[in-house]
């Protein structure tokens, strides 16, 4: 897993691979890996970095709201200008998040409630179980926004947060990285509100963190 470097090369030609049709609206860039491979990045990872922030930025004392902050990220990508406080308040008032006795532990959301919140704001969204990284990549390359459920221990490479290996943290995928030569998905770029960082996650880590934990995701059009 690597910190994402937005200083990618200028926009290049679209890579023609056998797969679902890519929309022309999805920005693409090319970059060169340290090993010399040229990659194509589908999605505005650099631009979407500005929608990422460390969760817990609200006046309610809520800290366990990675799902809500991911929803905020998606709404901002849609041009809907909301703060974390706005979505926390909306979710609480509409019964879409947990309200615990300790505010720090409040804010939890299920995939269905995340999708419902997005629909409340006028964004067409649904929860689903993803079967593969290629399926996830297809969503991004079609211009959709995706929130995925991952295991925080695997994502942060810290066994303290592995627990029983289940999905226990929500992040927003902003781009897919493919090998230009082979078309293979090498990984994704995602906004992680858990540490406020935008990062590249390789396909192997993504498989362990997401696919193998159930492939929970929320897809927005």
């Amino acid at each position: 897993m690597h910190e994402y470097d937005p200083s990618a090369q200028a926009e290049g030609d679209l890579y023609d691979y056998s797969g679902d049709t890519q929309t022309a609206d999805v920005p693409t860039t090319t970059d060169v890996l340290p090993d010399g491979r040229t990659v194509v990045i589908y999605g505005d990872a650099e631009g979407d970095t500005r929608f990422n922030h460390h969760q817990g930025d609200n006046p309610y004392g809520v800290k366990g709201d990675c799902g809500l902050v991911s929803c905020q990220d998606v709404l901002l990508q849609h041009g809907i200008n909301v703060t974390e406080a706005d979505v926390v308040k909306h979710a609480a008032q509409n019964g879409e998040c947990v309200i615990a006795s300790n505010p720090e532990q409040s804010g939890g959301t299920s995939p269905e409630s995340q999708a419902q919140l997005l629909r409340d704001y006028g964004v067409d969204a649904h929860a689903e179980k993803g079967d593969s990284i290629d399926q996830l990549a297809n969503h991004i390359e079609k211009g959709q926004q995706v929130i995925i459920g991952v295991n925080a221990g695997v994502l942060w490479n810290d066994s303290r947060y592995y627990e029983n290996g289940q999905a226990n943290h929500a992040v927003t995928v902003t781009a897919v990285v493919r090998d230009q030569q082979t078309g293979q998905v090498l990984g994704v770029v995602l906004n992680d509100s858990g540490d406020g960082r935008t990062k590249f996650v390789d396909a192997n880590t993504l498989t362990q963190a997401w696919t193998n934990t159930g492939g929970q995701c929320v897809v927005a059009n």
Partner: protein
Amino acid sequence: MDRIALHADLLSYSEARRRLLTMGIVMSDVPIESAVSLPLPTNRWSIPGYAVFAGPALRIPGEAPIQAAPDRWWVYGARGGHLLIYALQAVQSFVPGELFSDVTLNNSSRTIDEMREDLAVLDRLMDGLVPAFFAGAAGELDRRRAVSETLSLVIPSQLTPRYRALVPDFFAWLEA
């Protein structure tokens, strides 16, 4: 003509644990931020099932994770995996009168690969043992001991009281 009785086969423990990942209730009602327990077998509600509890958790990189008291629990059938019961603790507690506190989990000395292997070992042991539990048989002593030891490895000691309160019948059988 004699009728042939139909029945669903028992899910293996490893299959039951796999199904927990994306069962309907998990996608619709259980917050992704929750700490979800391991499923454990029980006959507590008359029908063979696997019981689970979940509760809020706080995970901040670099800080010890905190698991709050369970706020919900459910049981799904050991045959077919269908939901049998789902309840919020505030409505129907799985242990009336018991109040659990937040627990701060100590640093785990095990790596993720080791924890993954521990769970794989648990799956194999439970696959071999759970049919005896549901059949009301004693089960091999050595296998029960092995499961008991593995559970102590995968379940943080601070969380053991919750598991024991959820499925006291299984623990009583395991330690007989």
